[in-house]
């Protein structure tokens, strides 16, 4: 009984190159409004269309410049020489040959790279190539790594670099004859000649101080101040660690993880623990000289979990008891990071700090902060200061951490402002993650926190990483967005890089490209694996080049474009007033669309809004970005929330930004037999029926919206209560009930949770309840309470902008 929205249109959409909206009338009137509202492009249809057309066949990467399926489509990838879109996605797969064209179109050329992305089990991990002591074969001039696009010449004795055209001798051990097509005969035996993504085993030359690295270490640093203890957090963490330590990441075939662990607790002072296996009891060492932090012990701080199992267990049992009666409310923060850093330095290894922190660090110590939150600054020129750290101390600390390969993951449990913008600096610049649980309560938040912690500890991660993106002559990587540190203009340094971290790279022309040779990208990531092996991961991608703007517009990917634009705008708020940033965004998109209208679309009346097929969703997404908490905060959004979101988005991949800006809204009352997810519907209140239950997810939260007129049977089946009024809105999980509907909904929730890198908070929203306000904020096609435009209004606005540009 559930009709797919507007699915009768899809044929039309697929056959034409662009979408024409609006009326032949020249002025925008109410009548036009009707046109916009009925014809506004639907993202749900596009996704559905892409899923049904491209999800069935594997995406084979052999061909240059192929636009991959959408991120919302389930598809398999076959690597035949180009990196999988799971690793790299581009704003356009056909890029202008000249800088003039690029400028004219205003389409940003960017790649969103997720170097350690997780692959589905059906796909094979990048092969590890070991060239022995001589290491990987590279171009003599630009140092690009051997890849499928290198051209072997002179019978295989030399090769010409596909990036800089320099000719390099093939080392004798690497020599191989060429077949009649000019391919090496060992082409299919060598991943670096036939695949888009592969790894090299690095030689000692690629290691710090010319020494192979030791396995990394994880240090758990737990705030034991009054709030942390009282909320039960300390006990929860200690309990969880007891079992979690058995799941540290390990290299494929290894029996146990090579990662060593250490423990620190802190409030105003730091407590280090000696958990050497030979001890009967752990030993605590207090360092109160926080002004001049040092690690008080060498032996016994970082230990192998299996060897020190009983001592660690004893420690984790005792920590909650030891601090049960604490009265200390103040905390330090910078010294905690310094302590971890010093410990890794002393152990001569890289690693990760897991810091569990509850409050603004106001105790006397380096990096001490003051409460400078001021909502009055919103919409003033000083708003940017809310996103900037209040001291440069943490920037310097971050630099030291990166130099050592010390990545900092931060779990925050604030009950009030704790200045995420400042506390997050080190995390952000070391490639770490921030997790924030405001008003943490064990009962409601423990699942989310523990799942996040488990995932964060277990996920694949590399350390002490450096990423370099090389390109064909003609374009150059000029700008980078993400959680990292750069000491020069080319090397992206990350103390740690996990499978979820994404770096967006922007390219600019510095010369001409040719249609024949196209454009090549090679992303090389040098990192230390969780077992301490130094490796290089190489991703190659070939793109087409065009001399016609239409080719550019035909091969764009709006999701990636939005990923870039959002990151660009979110960085902009650090330096410019938010309004300037918003205006610049609108202007750039208007220019993109105006350029299309002017150069590619068939002549038509100016009253018609014409959107390129690949960008027909640009306005709706753009509107979502403009309405997001960072760029247009509602009254309930805190300064910390905005800083948190800003940093979070900066490391997101395309799928995450996609759902974050335009949440997925799923009707739950559908055919329960189906295994797949129900089809999404537009995020608009008018789509919600009072008699239905809906699910909305944005990668951070899952809302279950229950209409007031939902049948009692459904309520009983889902919530185990007999009426709408009995549904408790502070449930954090759905009750486990043995009926098909409950099972179905819970399996949908589980399915969604698995897809996301963070465990989403489940919120039950009853129609007409006070929480519904929060929910409505995510109905992004509607006008928002904070003044964000509705989809229709925004389309209208864009049209006006475009027309102004054209006239």
């Amino acid at each position, binding site marked *: 009984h559930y009709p797919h929205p507007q699915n009768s249109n899809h044929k039309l959409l697929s056959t034409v190159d662009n979408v024409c909206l609006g009326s032949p009338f020249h002025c925008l009137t109410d009548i036009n409004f009707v046109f916009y509202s009925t014809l506004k492009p639907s993202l749900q249809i596009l996704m559905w269309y892409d899923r049904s057309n491209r999800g069935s066949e594997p995406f084979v990467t052999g061909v240059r410049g192929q636009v991959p399926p959408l991120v919302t489509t389930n598809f398999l990838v076959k690597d035949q020489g180009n990196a999988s879109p799971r690793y790299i996605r581009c704003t356009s797969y056909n890029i202008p040959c000249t800088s003039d064209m690029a400028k004219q179109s205003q389409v940003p050329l960017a790649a969103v790279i997720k170097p350690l992305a997780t692959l589905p089990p059906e796909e094979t991990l990048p092969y590890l190539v070991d060239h022995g002591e001589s290491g990987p074969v590279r171009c003599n001039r630009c140092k690009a790594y051997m890849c499928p696009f290198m051209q072997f010449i002179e019978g295989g004795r030399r090769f010409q670099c596909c990036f800089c055209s320099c000719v390099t001798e093939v080392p004798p051990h690497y020599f191989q004859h060429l077949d009649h097509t000019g391919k090496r005969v060992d082409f299919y035996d060598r991943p670096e000649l036939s695949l888009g993504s592969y790894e090299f085993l690095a030689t000692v030359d690629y290691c710090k101080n010319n020494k192979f690295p030791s396995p990394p270490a994880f240090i758990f640093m737990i705030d034991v101040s009054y709030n942390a203890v009282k909320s039960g957090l300390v006990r929860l963490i200690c309990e969880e660690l007891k079992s979690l330590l058995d799941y540290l990441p390990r290299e494929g075939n290894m029996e146990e993880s090579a990662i060593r662990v250490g423990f620190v607790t802190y409030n105003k002072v730091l407590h280090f623990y000696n958990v050497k296996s030979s001890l009967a009891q752990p030993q605590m*060492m207090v360092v109160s000289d926080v002004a001049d932090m040092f690690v008080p012990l060498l032996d016994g701080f970082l230990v192998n979990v299996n060897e020190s199992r009983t001592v660690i267990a004893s420690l984790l049992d005792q920590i909650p008891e*030891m601090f049960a009666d604490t009265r200390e409310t103040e905390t330090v923060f910078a010294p905690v990071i310094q302590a971890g850093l010093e410990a890794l330095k002393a152990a001569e290894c890289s690693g990760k700090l897991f810091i569990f922190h509850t409050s603004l660090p106001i105790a006397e110590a380096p990096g001490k902060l003051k409460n400078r939150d001021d909502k009055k600054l919103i919409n003033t020129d000083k708003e940017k200061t809310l996103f900037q750290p209040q001291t440069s101390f943490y920037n310097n600390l971050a630099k030291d951490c990166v130099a050592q390969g010390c990545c900092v993951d931060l779990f925050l449990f604030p009950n009030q402002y704790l200045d995420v913008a400042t506390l997050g600096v080190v995390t952000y610049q070391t490639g770490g993650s921030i997790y924030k649980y405001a008003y943490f309560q064990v009962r409601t938040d423990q699942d989310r926190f523990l799942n996040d912690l488990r995932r964060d500890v277990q996920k694949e991660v590399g350390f002490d990483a450096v990423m370099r993106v090389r390109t064909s002559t003609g374009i150059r990587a000029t700008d980078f967005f993400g959680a990292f540190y750069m000491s020069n203009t080319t090397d992206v340094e990350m103390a740690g890089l996990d499978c979820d971290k994404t770096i967006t790279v922007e390219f600019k022309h510095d010369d001409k490209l040719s249609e024949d040779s196209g454009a090549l990208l090679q992303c090389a990531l040098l990192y230390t694996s969780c077992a301490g092996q130094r490796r290089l991961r190489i991703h190659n991608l070939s793109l087409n080049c065009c001399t016609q703007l239409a080719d550019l517009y035909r091969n764009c990917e709006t999701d990636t474009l939005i990923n870039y634009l959002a990151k660009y705008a979110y960085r902009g708020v650090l330096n410019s007033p938010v309004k300037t940033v918003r205006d610049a965004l609108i202007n750039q998109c208007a220019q993109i669309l105006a350029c299309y209208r002017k150069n590619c679309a068939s002549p038509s009346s100016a009253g018609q809004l014409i959107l390129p097929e690949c960008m027909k969703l640009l306005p709706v997404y753009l509107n979502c970005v403009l309405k997001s908490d960072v760029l247009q905060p509602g009254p309930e959004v805190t300064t910390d929330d905005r800083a948190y979101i800003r940093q979070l988005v900066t490391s997101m991949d395309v799928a995450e930004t996609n759902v974050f800006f335009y949440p997925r809204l799923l009707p739950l009352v559908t055919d329960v037999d189906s295994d797949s997810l129900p089809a999404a519907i537009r995020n608009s209140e008018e789509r919600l029926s009072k008699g239905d239950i809906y699910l909305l997810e944005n990668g951070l939260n899952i809302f279950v919206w229950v209409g007031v007129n939902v049948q009692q049977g459904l309520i009983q089946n889902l919530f185990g209560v007999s009426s709408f009024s009995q549904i408790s809105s502070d449930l954090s999980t759905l009750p486990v009930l043995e009926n098909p509907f409950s099972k179905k909904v819970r399996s949908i929730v589980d399915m969604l949770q698995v897809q996301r890198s963070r465990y989403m908070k489940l919120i039950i929203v009853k129609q007409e309840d006070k929480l519904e306000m929060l929910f409505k904020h995510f109905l992004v096609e509607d006008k928002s309470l904070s003044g964000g435009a509705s989809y229709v209004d925004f389309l209208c606005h864009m049209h006006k902008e475009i027309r102004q540009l054209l006239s």
Partner: protein
Amino acid sequence: MATYLEFIQQNEERDGVRFSWNVWPSSRLEATRMVVPLACLLTPLKERLDLPPVQYEPVLCSRPTCKAVLSPLCQVDYRAKLWACNFCFQRNQFPPAYAGISEVNQPAELMPQFSTIEYIVQRGPQTPLIFLYVVDTCLEEEDLQALKESLQMSLSLLPADALVGLITFGRMVQVHELSCEGISKSYVFRGTKDLTAKQIQDMLGLSRPAVPIQQGRPLQTPEQPVISSRFLQPVHKIDMNLTDLLGELQRDPWPVTQGKRPLRSTGVALSIAVGLLEGTFPNTGARIMLFTGGPPTQGPGMVVGDELKTPIRSWHDIEKDNARFMKKATKHYETLANRTAANGHCIDIYACALDQTGLLEMKCCANLTGGHMVMGDSFNTSLFKQTFQRVFNKGFNGEFRMAFGASLDVKTSRELKIAGAIGPCISLNAKGPCVSENELGIGGTSQWKICSLDPSTTLAIYFEVVNQHNAPIPQGGRGAVQFVTQYQHSSTQKRIRVTTIARNWADAQSQLQHIEAAFDQEAAAVLMARLGVYRAESEEGPDVLRWLDRQLIRLGRTLRNESSYYRHHFARQDLTQSLIMIQPILYAYSFHGPPEPVLLDSSSILPDRILLMDTFFQIVIYLGETIAQWQKAGYQDMPEYENFKHLLQAPLDDAQEILQTRFPMPRYIHTEHGGSQARFLLSKVNPSQTHNNLYAWGQESGAPILTDDVSLQVFMDHLKKLAVSSAS
């Protein structure tokens, strides 16, 4: 009348006082002509088996500038219940409690036999004794093990209610919390950073939170000390805990690379120990006991860098002012010592290492606070083990032979002034009419603080006769001195010991023979020697050496470290022990008769003799050539030569007796003719026969010594010549 010898002995036994002159020259001019100053050796806590303490407060002279204690020297008007102070002549009313006194009902302090009397007074809360162990962990495994065992053993020797604490150090300094169950807890400090007392207390969490003063409520006595802190706990409560903790103590884990010394943060460790006690238990008896196995190599108070290729400063470097760290280090330890002394605590140093440990820089810690200083080659020697055990020895009444936080107040009659004191004390800067402007030793005061003392602690106190020549003292006049020592007894009682003595004045012109006869040669030697050592400490240089006899000269020539050590002990031991240090004793055992003292001369070394030498720091048993051969042949095991066995045994028994009482435990050396250890004997004897004059003497007797030092004979000849020539 008894001889002066007996008089001197009696006085020493009763009052613990020996004067250089027992009849005093009556004018300043005459006194200066005597060369040897009027001075005395005072053993404030001399053990008196026959002296039961009285349980009341002493009666003081009411003149605020005097406050002398009522003594047998005071004139008493029993009828009017008045007494006259013999120092300031103030007439004082007896307190009401003395209403019943009369000629036949005298309080003890008026009886002549109580010229020394001890009062037990009730003042302030009693605090238990405190022992804070400061332990170096940069030791060899074997050494550390031995030290751990000694420390564990010592816990059983402490009074059950004594508070004990533990600080360990190496590259870092760890203050151990002793009260915790389960996880053992310690506070760790960098060994390189000097912290103020306030910082240390803040970091240890000892600063008392400011108590808001509430209106209408009486203020709580702010002086109320916190009886326990987490770091200092009663032995009986935590001895198991601490024994385990000591047992688990590991060598400093930080790697020491080839060619480096371990990083040893002695300076910071001591600073923290001092700060900890300062913050928690000021002005109560406390011992900081430092056990170290090498020189401080980092942080404040470092004596040498960690590069092995740079050797520790030598005597030569110091003379050339080339010792890089010395001044700074000395200053650091001096500051600490002064703070410790101001708090009434003391620092013991137990330094056991083959190489130097920087005692020169650290000496003031023990010297100014009355702490012990013990030097040995290793903690795994009986020298250390027994010495350390002896620290906790108990006296005849089962009490520890240690007392704390003493102040010594000296009062004199008008004709005398106080020039100064030499001993383990610091000045309390009490100026007064009886303080001389001419300083000898630590002067400018009539009061000194002695942070730690035992029954043998002896101070030298120097006086100046100020009576003018033209104002003669009437015939039969007596001068008096009163020593008032207030201290914390090892039972934690507060006690006051008062010794009041008087000596006759005599006119040096008419009664020189009296004065001469009452000269105490031994006391004078020690008093002069102390002055010499004191000047050597403060002035250095060859001038001072001329002061003293050859043995003292030698004292200054040994390694710096050792000399600090020897000087330390010299400045505090009682007279007999001091004499042994000056002139070692040599006994001979042979078949020719009973053991006899012989000249400390190379001619005493004969083949058929066993020699026993006692130099205070060393006990050497030396078997003559023939005896050694007999012993090798095993005669002592044959029943028919039992007398030889006895001969061998006799010196061993005697040595054992010395070893049992001596503190610190001397180095015990058993050697024989030609043995390498024989050098200890040969270096001490008078070289009457050397390689220079060997052939002039008979070949038979004695053993030649290879030395450039002059023999006593030559020295005396020279001295006589000088004496004669200067007289002319």
